């Protein structure tokens, strides 16, 4: 049952008809490309600030898919049909977090390679960025799904969701980007810790939000 849900979720999030899976990745790359235009071609400055830019870009890229994570299924009655079959909102949301991470995290980590090269990051920095994204993107995915569930059905929900995600994503940003500074290795562990908290909350907060959106 979980497998069936996961398969459909992935097909929807990655499917050619949605055209949305690539969008956050392209947006993420575009930020890395335009940043040197804005601050100039000072290689030392780019290498020093590039890791932070990648983290900001990742956080902003998480906003793009918000409106298609929960709302379409809520509107089309899929959550109702699942509830009738004994599939709780919590389970459906947990599966959604996993499928959203699969369609969002690894592509972003892949795109961080050319982005890091464009910004002239050193090998060690790039490695820290990749490890940080590995630790942080699951939390970002969980946060996105939670916020998408909370704002589903509201007018202008997607815009409100963007505003909600930025402050709530700040801990990930602080620890993730902080791990890049000298002696900041513990930042990776803290990023993973924040991720786990967000992942633990997401099914319950998201499930409750889906139930609340019904009435």
């Amino acid at each position, binding site marked *: *049952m979980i497998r*069936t*849900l996961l398969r*459909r979720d992935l097909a*929807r999030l990655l*499917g050619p*008809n*949605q055209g949305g899976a690539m969008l956050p990745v392209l947006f993420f790359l575009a930020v890395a490309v335009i940043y040197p235009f804005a601050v100039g071609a000072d290689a030392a400055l780019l290498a020093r600030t590039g890791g932070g830019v990648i983290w900001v870009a990742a956080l902003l890229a998480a906003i793009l898919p918000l409106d298609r994570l929960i709302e379409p299924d809520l*509107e*089309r*009655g*899929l959550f*109702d*049909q699942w*509830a*009738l*079959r004994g599939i709780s909102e919590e389970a459906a949301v947990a599966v959604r977090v996993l499928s959203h991470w699969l369609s969002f995290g690894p592509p972003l980590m892949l795109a961080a390679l050319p982005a890091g090269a464009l910004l002239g990051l050193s090998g060690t920095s790039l490695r820290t960025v990749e490890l940080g994204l590995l630790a942080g993107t699951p939390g970002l995915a969980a946060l996105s799904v939670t916020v998408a569930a909370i704002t589903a059905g509201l007018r202008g929900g997607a815009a409100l969701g963007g505003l909600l995600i930025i402050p709530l994503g700040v801990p990930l940003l602080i620890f993730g980007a902080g791990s890049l500074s000298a002696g900041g290795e513990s930042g990776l562990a803290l990023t993973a810790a924040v991720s786990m908290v967000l992942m633990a909350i997401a099914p319950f907060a998201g499930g409750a939000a889906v139930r609340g959106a*019904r*009435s």
Partner: protein
Amino acid sequence: MQGADTAARIVADDLACRRGDRVLFRGLSFTLQPGEALQVSGANGVGKSSLLRLVAGLARPFTGTIRHRGTIGLVDERPALDPELPLAAALAFWTRLDGGASLPLEALGLTDLLDVPVRYLSTGQRKRAAMARLIGQDAAIWLLDEPLNGLDTDAVRLVEALTAAHCAAGGIALIASHQPFTLAGLTQLALADYAA
């Protein structure tokens, strides 16, 4: 009487339903036993759909209790089929979830539409697809919300026949419709009589 304990049933006791700050109906009690069908009728906004959602457990009654035994299948205005997928793939998702029963596609006139993306289907075709999904679910209790909307006369007769077969096999049907629904032994409930 072992069988009676596991048989499907719906028991509603002194139900009241509220939407927003308005009470739609109150004091509604009914019992449905296996093989019985009940049509809830009334004007728009009288609370027919809300009653079905109460029975399905998707909404909570304002007062009173609603209990049911047996699995519930719901067909409402949303077919719950992915609009971008061809009909066959959209139905296959539910077939996998519901345990793989074969669907009466031929009888529902859906065989020629299997390649068509759901978003290109007409209202009546979507309704028939939703009926196929419902039959695949093999639920003991059918909740049909305006099942005849958008259907041509042949399809109306088909849905009526499918419902009759479901009840004959010991199922329960609760139909919310303002249109006449032809079914042997169908009891009527005018929801307006319970308006608050």
